[in-house]
């Protein structure tokens, strides 16, 4: 039997007519939603809030970059650009050299936040010359905290080997903890894009940014080491340790990258510690026979001249300086010719 309308009457059935008021509300709501969606999806790219992406490149991640400030401080009149402290203990040599360049208090003001950048690239004992000397570190941090009354001393490096191990076994972690500094290890989000105008290879490159936040002064403290590819790793090459990213590619143009480093950061002072000089098998060393004892601690406001002197007198490699020093000079980071600008204090 064909079913006709109204045949089956459901007692619960209530006819729910759409009155004008609710019809208008619903229509307006629908139109609003559709209109908003249409605007977001169809409006030209330059309109505010538009989501339109014609090239397909709007979604490419943009990396914000930052710049470093110039940490240099004009030296007091009459002091030389490079001062070498000799004789006595490491601490005495450091103190002599710092006095000779005008005193640490001239460069560091009370309340400053200071970053000290040692070379902790490898997991080696302090005496093997592959890493910065913890005794010098200890002394320097104490001077900063006590004599200069700084607010905070930070210590940071991005080692090639395991960071925790390198810091602990090089003795740096112990020295820093005892002296009252704070160590920044390279965690996953310690790096940001650094913009260095004038650099050829690292105009924009990942840089260990976290420890440099709000820093007022920067001091580099490096050992003097043999290096197969670029002949020597000294004060300027030390800044390599703040780079992140795929930095192992830089070996393809080592002299250019090292000279880029010299303009990447303008440290307040650079300290070169010629107490344990790694003469061969560098930059890793590992055997006491690779190390020569020296008695020089250098402090400089011109890292290029400092490296040149150390190359000639500590590594004893004559005046055939590594090419990166000349390139650094071309980029305006200092002058290779140290003669007349260096003072030795015995």
């Amino acid at each position: 039997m064909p079913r006709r309308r109204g045949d089956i009457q459901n007692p619960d059935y209530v006819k729910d007519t759409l009155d004008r008021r609710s019809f208008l509300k619903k229509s307006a709501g629908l139109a609003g939603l559709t209109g908003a969606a249409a605007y977001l999806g169809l409006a030209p790219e330059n309109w505010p809030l538009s989501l339109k992406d014609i090239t397909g490149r709007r979604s490419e991640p943009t990396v914000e970059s930052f710049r470093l400030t110039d940490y240099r401080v004009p030296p007091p009149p009459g002091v030389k650009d490079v001062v070498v402290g000799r004789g006595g203990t490491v601490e005495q040599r450091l103190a002599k050299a710092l006095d000779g360049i005008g005193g640490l208090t001239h460069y560091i003001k009370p309340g400053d936040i200071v970053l000290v950048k040692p070379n902790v690239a490898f997991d080696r004992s302090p005496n093997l010359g592959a890493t910065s000397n913890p005794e010098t570190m200890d002394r320097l941090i104490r001077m900063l905290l006590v004599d200069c009354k700084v607010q905070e001393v930070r210590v940071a490096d991005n080692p090639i080997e395991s960071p925790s191990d390198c810091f602990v076994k090089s003795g740096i972690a112990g020295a820093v903890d005892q002296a009252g500094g704070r160590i920044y290890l390279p965690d996953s989000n310690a790096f940001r894009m650094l913009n260095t105008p004038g650099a050829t290879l690292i105009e924009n490159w990942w840089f260990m940014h976290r420890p440099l936040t709000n820093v007022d002064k920067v001091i580099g403290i490096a050992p003097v080491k043999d290096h197969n590819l670029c002949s020597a790793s000294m004060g300027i090459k030390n800044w390599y340790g703040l780079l992140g990213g795929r930095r192992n590619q830089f070996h393809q143009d080592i002299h250019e990258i090292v000279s880029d480093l010299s303009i990447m950061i303008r440290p307040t002072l650079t300290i070169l510690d010629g107490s344990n000089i790694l003469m061969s098998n560098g930059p890793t060393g590992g055997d006491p026979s690779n190390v020569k004892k020296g008695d020089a601690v250098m402090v400089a406001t011109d890292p290029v001249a400092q490296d040149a002197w150390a190359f000639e007198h500590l590594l004893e490699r004559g005046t055939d300086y590594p090419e990166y020093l000349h390139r650094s000079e071309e980029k305006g980071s200092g002058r290779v010719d140290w003669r007349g600008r260096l003072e030795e204090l015995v």
Partner: protein
Amino acid sequence: MAGRKQDDKILNPLKRKILRRRFSTAELVFGPLFLVLLVLVGAWIVLQKNNYDPGERDIAFTQLQEDSVEDNLYRRPVELWIEPGTALAGGVPSVDLGILPSSLVGEGWQLDGRLESYDASNLYEKINGAAEQYLAYGFTELNYVTLAQGDNFITLELYDQTSFPNVLGLFSAQGGGTHEVKKNGDMFYFTTPIGAIGGLGNYYFKISGNNESDPVVEKAMSMVQELAALPVSGGGIPLPYRMLTDRLDVAFKQISYIKDNAFQYDFLTEFWFAPLGDGGDARIFLHQAGSADEAAARFGSLVEEQAYEYELQVNEPERAVLQHEYLKTIFAVSRRGDMIYGVDGAGDPAAAEAALARIEEVMTGA
């Protein structure tokens, strides 16, 4: 919201409820005892912690020194690029030594690295602070090579100083005159325990080995011999110098050269001096001007200026003899062609004449 179904619940809705009413003493004694046990275990864990000592997982430095191994690896010397097609027939690749005699290489001595050249703009790369001195004496080019034979090394630095007087000046400035200078043809040099330093025409050279062993010294001496054949440029050896050394047999040490302001006259340059040889302060002097006319003009000016302090005794167009007003010493000067020569401070006119005659004799023989 009321009427929510069980499926809408996200987490356990029931509160913990205890239905039992009785608790045993043993249970209530056990509870606190067990908690004490847990605290003890916790304390044990904490006590097990010791401060991390890097020395635990390290090797003592003394141990490293004890077990230090000698690096006895053989390392192949650097292979330098050789342009294809330049190999010699004998299989010995020719090496590009530029102006240097290629015979430097051989008999076991090999080139270490390649020939390096520097000019005035980059000389400091090589010798840094010393560069100023070379530049002051007309430096134009440095050729630098290292020769090696096993552990023996010899470096040769050959500086082109433009002209012989520059070389001589540099040689004196670097203290060369204080040594016993030897001669080899036009070359002059003195030997050091590990090499030699000297000059030849416009070239100034330094040869130095890395030790005093016989092979090094022998090689250094043979290098000196080979350099003597180097073709010189920059005007060669000046005639006055050649006359003094070759004809008048004046010792190298006694020759002096005034570049500017001879006799304090700004128009007199490039004068060569040597002692007269009479035991006194008298000296002979020689000068070669660019031309005869120039020489004549200078001769005239010299005589004219000297007349203020000297009494003119002989005044000929090409010869003048003057006597100092107070010292009574004789100043005699003569000109022949582009040459000006004479004697200063001779005791009497006869000695001066004799000296002039000797110079003239040598000059005609030239």
